[in-house]
């Protein structure tokens, strides 16, 4: 009689990666290698101003220094990465598109397969999609509607051309090029990404969304996203990821910077489903991302929500610097690992202002031989009177070969602060599965329902359309009856 755990294990490990296909688009690829010339090539190709080239070169300088000693504090062995074997620029050859008609039909077909047909999105409205295929934006929708409100939402490349002052003012102010080795690499070679600016007092009229997709063989992706919410502004940004199947590891080292001024609010949601490698841990994406936001003014709020199901290794800590008094930082995370996947993820909440509040809800789900770590830091500076943090980290284990780890760091320099930490570890009980079986659900659906329930608190924070996708990614099919 197979045990339920084994059934589950089998189910998850047997699941094929659904989005394992490759788009054939003519690419212009830079030969592998990383040096000053590479940087100059990228910068020239993108027709960048001199200051940005110099900024990139500083990034390269820091990368060279930082890569001498790769980090060792993480809870996994960092695989050797030959940075010289990576090609740092790939762009679909056809460029400068005025309408969707000019988009390569194959690219459009890819988006269809991913379930994000731009045409339909347009009709459905409510979501503006800045679709990033590899390094260059190929289509942008809803520009007009956003323009009316004065919201700038475009690729980083366009932003550099059209809004250089804004970019120059904020780029690298939250994640400097010296931050860590992968952030330095990103600063040096960042390809494209999204830029968003919401002016004073404007509530962005729709959810903003970008779909990143790694596509070219052997090209790492180095997106850089910069979102600025000016005083009293509000924006909700969605990032969704999926990549085609690969045999070789692909490095992804993105940087996301969020800046919320006085009374501004930024909500940033991610669903990440990059190729996780095969059953034995071969292939798969290395997802080494630096995400950080700053609440610069009083009553600002930044909220990170992430559902991480993909990548061979996920290594990221979306963080919030709570500089303004009464500012709020939130982090809601579901990280699911199976087979040989590794996730080392969590957040940092840096309380600098008075009466700052932060909330951390982390839900890890581990199956197979995977290792799932929560790593979080709550820091309260000496000036942060009455700072408040609540942290909850839960781990759900499916099977007995996987690992769940929690590394909470607390650094409190102010006696008026109140910090709370709760943690639980649990397994799906056989009697829960039998109970659901007895109500007509097969074991797969029963597990999906239980996992869905477990992650509910986080999923509830996702915008509706994303919550649905996230549930699918958590191997859940509820016959469309999402409650």
């Amino acid at each position, binding site marked *: 009689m197979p045990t339920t755990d084994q059934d589950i294990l089998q189910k998850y490990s047997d699941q094929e990666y659904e989005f394992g296909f490759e788009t054939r688009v003519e690419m212009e690829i830079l030969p592998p290698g990383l040096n000053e010339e590479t940087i100059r090539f990228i910068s020239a190709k993108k027709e960048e101003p001199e200051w940005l080239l110099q900024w990139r070169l500083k990034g390269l300088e820091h990368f060279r220094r930082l890569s001498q000693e790769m980090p060792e504090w993480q809870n996994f062995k960092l695989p050797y990465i030959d940075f010289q074997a990576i090609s740092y620029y790939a762009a679909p050859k056809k460029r400068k598109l005025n309408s969707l008609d000019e988009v390569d039909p194959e690219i459009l077909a890819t988006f269809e397969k991913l379930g994000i047909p731009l045409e339909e999105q347009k009709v459905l409205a409510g979501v503006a999609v800045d679709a990033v295929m590899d390094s260059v934006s190929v289509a942008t929708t809803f520009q007009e509607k956003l323009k009316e409100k004065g919201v700038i939402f475009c690729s980083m490349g366009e932003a550099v051309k059209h809004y250089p002052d804004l970019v120059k003012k904020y780029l690298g102010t939250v994640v400097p090029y010296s931050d860590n080795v992968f952030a330095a690499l990103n600063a040096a070679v960042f390809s494209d990404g999204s830029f968003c600016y919401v002016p004073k007092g404007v509530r962005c009229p729709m959810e903003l969304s970008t779909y990143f997709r790694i596509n070219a063989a052997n090209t790492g992706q180095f997106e850089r996203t910069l979102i600025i919410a000016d005083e009293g502004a509000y924006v909700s940004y969605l990032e969704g990821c999926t990549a085609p199947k690969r045999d070789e590891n692909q490095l992804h080292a993105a940087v996301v910077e969020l800046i919320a001024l006085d009374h501004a609010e930024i909500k940033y949601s991610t669903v990440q489903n990059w190729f996780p490698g095969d059953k034995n841990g071969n292939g798969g994406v290395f997802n080494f991302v630096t995400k950080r936001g700053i609440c610069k003014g009083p009553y600002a709020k930044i909220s990170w929500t992430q559902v991480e199901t993909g990548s061979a290794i996920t290594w990221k800590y979306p963080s919030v610097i709570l500089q303004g008094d009464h500012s709020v930082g939130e982090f809601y995370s579901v990280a699911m690992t199976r087979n040989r996947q590794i996730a080392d993820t969590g957040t940092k909440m840096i309380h600098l202002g008075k009466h700052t509040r932060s909330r951390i809800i982390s839900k890890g789900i581990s199956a197979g031989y995977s290792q799932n770590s929560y790593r979080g830091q709550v820091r309260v500076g000496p000036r942060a009177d009455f700072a408040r943090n609540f942290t909850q980290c839960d781990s759900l284990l499916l099977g007995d070969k996987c690992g769940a780890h929690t590394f909470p760091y607390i650094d409190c320099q102010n006696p008026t602060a109140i910090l709370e930490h709760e943690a639980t570890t649990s397994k799906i009980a056989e009697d829960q599965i*039998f109970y659901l*079986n007895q109500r007509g659900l097969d074991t797969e659906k029963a597990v999906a329902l239980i996992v869905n*329930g477990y992650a509910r608190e986080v999923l509830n924070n996702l915008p509706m359309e994303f919550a649905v996708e996230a549930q699918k990614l958590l191997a859940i099919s509820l016959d469309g009856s*999402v409650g």
Partner: protein
Amino acid sequence: MLQIKNLQASVNGEPILKGVDLEVKAGEIHAIMGPNGSGKSTLASVLAGNELYEVTGGEAWFEGKNLLEMPPEIRAREGLFMAFQYPVEIPGVSNINFLKTALAEIRAHRGLPPLSAKEFMQRLKEKQELVEFNASLVNRSLNEGFSGGEKKRNEILQLAMLEPKLAILDETDSGLDIDALRIVANGVNKLRAKDNAFIIITHYQRLLQYIIPDYVHVLYDGRIIKSGTKELAYELEEKGYDWIKESLQASFS
């Protein structure tokens, strides 16, 4: 509807059911009584398909189909329902969503489309009233933080919603106060019909004051040793299980 022939089952190699025979027809209510450890709950679990129990012999036929060959979810979809003695809690899964999912599965098995949201809510409202279920509880997570009585009543709500052919109530009366007991019993009485059947497993006679069974069986040491009508239940209450044991020993000596 249900024919059980010489059913034997064990847990961890230890025989619990030693040859149970039982026939339940549509429209009937059968009560199975017996002292602790006699195998009552094992019988319920075996019929529902709990894999912790190993069937070592005998047969069980449900509507002409071999029950023992079906996985538990198919038994459920075929119309067999068990009200659990200890309903589990499933955090984060709303009662409504759970009911919707379960109902959709059972309907799909019968070739029916899922109910529309409106039809579903209508049905839920009706059934809620039928079993006097607190409306605020349906929006909460499945059984999470429910009192013992609320859990039991939730089982009856599920029973009402899923409309099984055969419902097995496994000690549904245990841990209920007199009001809750009356509500549960009223629910069952309203749900009983010509084309469904109930097996009520209980240790005490008191539930049978509210739900009048057609037949009462006494399970002892893994066998049904005595069957009768509702009077048997009164007799048991009066004389206790020792009476059965003694009469059994007397018949052997």
